[in-house]
């Protein structure tokens, strides 16, 4: 059954200096598949990756690469199949980015490592792929961390591997380059049928690119499953030890813990208009309530995470008198009421709530001013 897997770790125990850190790891990846390792800092993601690329000695178990035990494979043979992008800093004095990318050709060049025309073309193409052509001739030590990461990816691409192992490749990248890097990985997987093992910090990105996800936590492999099964609010919150409701699987984002206490502001939101106000109040440390929201509203998951209390009605349901009554009770206890919602057919009652607030009613801009001036 191993035939279908390109790389598989079987009963692998990893650790440093013979001391086991994580035992009995089983990880398999097929070609054309992205496997992502997620988990809290220090959970052992890097240790697993380093063990799979033979940088760390296995304490027990085997890693099988393309049907052969990696322990018996020659470095050079491994190099033609497996490329890495690790977090180690490279001290590359006087080497240009092109030089670094060209080291990917190492397993293919002759005894003195001289590049042929074909090698150069491959290196050029790899630099092109990661959009590094513009700074290809600049010293590697003189470019930004993000650019360096891309050059290292070009190096891995030039190696023409069948599997790429990347340890937190997005750490130093800005949003645009994060997406770009993952897009490159995706297309390598699609077009060249490469297998990818990558560890990521960004859960939203992991959710977007992974075919399968391995969760490493508490010195064990907690779960290994499809992203649909892994990225649920409760599971991720538990994995990272964040408070309930703090992680939102739909958005793949995490929220800071809610401010607790008696709500001082009531926010009538809807259709995403409430979120900026929720966030503002959360930053200012002011407890607030929110409502009345239909449970399919974009505002709903955020208010769930940030508001002391949210008055809701079921998805697609019109706001009923019962919900309005509960909202009125909360409004009575608040100092200010902000209505950001557009009033329409199903949330007509929200308009009435706004009327009900009377003197307490204010708009978002006035509320922000009041908070900044300490009047709330």
């Amino acid at each position, binding site marked *: 059954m191993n035939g279908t897997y390109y790389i598989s770790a079987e009963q692998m125990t990893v650790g440093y200096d013979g001391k086991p850190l994580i035992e009995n790891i089983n990880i398999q990846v097929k070609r054309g598949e992205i496997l992502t390792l997620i988990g809290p800092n220090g959970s052992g993601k890097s240790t697993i990756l380093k063990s799979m690329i*033979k940088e760390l000695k296995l304490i027990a178990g085997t890693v099988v690469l393309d049907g052969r035990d990696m322990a018996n494979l*020659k470095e050079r043979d491994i190099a033609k199949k497996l490329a890495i992008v690790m977090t*180690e800093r*490279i001290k590359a004095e*006087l*080497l240009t980015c092109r030089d670094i990318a060209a*080291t990917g050709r*190492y397993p293919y060049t002759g005894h003195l490592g001289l590049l042929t025309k074909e090698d150069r073309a491959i290196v050029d193409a790899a630099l092109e792929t990661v959009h590094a052509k513009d700074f290809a001739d*600049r*010293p590697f030590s003189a470019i930004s961390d993000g650019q360096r990461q891309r050059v290292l990816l070009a190096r891995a691409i030039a190696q023409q591997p069948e599997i790429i192992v990347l340890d937190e490749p997005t750490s130093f990248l800005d949003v645009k380059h994060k997406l770009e890097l993952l897009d490159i990985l995706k297309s390598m997987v699609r077009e060249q049928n490469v297998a990818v093992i990558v560890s990521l910090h960004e859960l939203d990105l992991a959710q977007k690119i992974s075919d399968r996800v391995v969760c490493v936590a508490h010195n064990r492999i907690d779960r290994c499953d499809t992203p649909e099964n892994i990225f649920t609010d409760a599971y991720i919150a538990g994995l990272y030890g964040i408070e309930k409701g703090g992680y939102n699987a739909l958005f793949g984002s995490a929220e800071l813990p809610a401010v607790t206490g008696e709500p001082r502001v009531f926010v009538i939101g809807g259709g995403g208009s409430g979120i900026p106000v929720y966030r503002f109040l959360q930053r200012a440390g002011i407890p607030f309530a929110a409502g009345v929201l239909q449970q399919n509203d974009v505002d709903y998951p955020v208010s769930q995470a940030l508001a002391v209390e949210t008055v809701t009605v079921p998805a697609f349901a019109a706001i009923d008198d019962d919900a309005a009554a509960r909202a009125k009770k909360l409004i009575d206890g608040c100092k200010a009421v902000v209505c950001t919602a557009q009033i329409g057919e199903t949330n007509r009652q929200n308009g009435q709530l706004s009327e009900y607030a009377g003197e307490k009613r204010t708009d978002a801009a006035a509320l922000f001013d009041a908070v900044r001036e300490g009047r709330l």
Partner: protein
Amino acid sequence: MQTGTPERNTAHGRQARLILGFALLFVALLGFAFWNIVAGSTALSIPEVFDGLLNAQSPHRVIVMDVRMVRILPAILLGGALALSGFLLQTFFSNPIAGPFILGISSGAKLVLSVTMIAFLSRGVAVGSIALILASFAGAMLSMGFVLAISAKVKRMSMLIICGVMIGYICSAITEFVIRFADDSNIVKLHDWAMGSFAGLKWDNVLVIAAVVLPALVLTFLMSKPIGAYQLGEVYARNMGVNIRAFRIALILLSGVLSACVTAFAGPISFVGVAVPHLMRRLFKTAKPIVMIPACFLGGAVFCLFCDLIARTAFAPNELSISSVTAVFGAPIVILVMLRRQKEGSR
């Protein structure tokens, strides 16, 4: 290095620099070699030099071949060996101020050599070239063993250097101690040698030096591919297909043989191993081993020819020890390197 000015390293520019650099080194090598033949207590004219070089019956033959050349050739070979050994050690420890002298490797070789020489000489047995090299190599490996053990524990590059210097001091102290117990007749010879000098070698020594250094140079050059990979760090080198264990052993043995050979015949010579690789990096603006290996060898040869010329002629008829001259020129380079690092680190 010059990160402030993003210069364009075009293929053309690189090639031109390569050709110019090596041309400069060759001209300097020939120039200093020739100057070394001409200059000395008996000054020779240029026709006399050529006569001595080419004509076996020439009255100048002895002075040209058996006094000057027999000193110039070791200076070239051993100078090159030192610089190469330094380059290998800098690569191995990824430490820009590593070198055979600073890490105490030369001193270790000196210690074992002294003991061996005294043991041989006190029994009235002459020490052969091979025995000299073997003793020296054993000493070099002894120090290297200590340095490696320390480097496994400390990751800071300054700590490694400090430990190396300490090992050097300990070895030198023991050497002094050993020499005190030697016969009077041995002391003079040992003392001269322990200070470092290219003088007093014979043609058969030169042949042995060439037989050791030149193959080591070729082997090192053949290793330029894995050395280049290793410059990116162990992790990436392994991923490029380098057998790290075998590579590290080969590197240690080669740098050990090179510095042992130098110490065996010329005594410990300071700073060449550290300074020359830096000068060559500046000259060629690259760290690629395929360039650096021949460049360091030539550069070391030129540097030592230059320093030996000064050692011989500056205060003639008195000779300076070669190490004091190499220190005068080499140490400031090391200081500059450290200052530059400091500046880069703080940025």
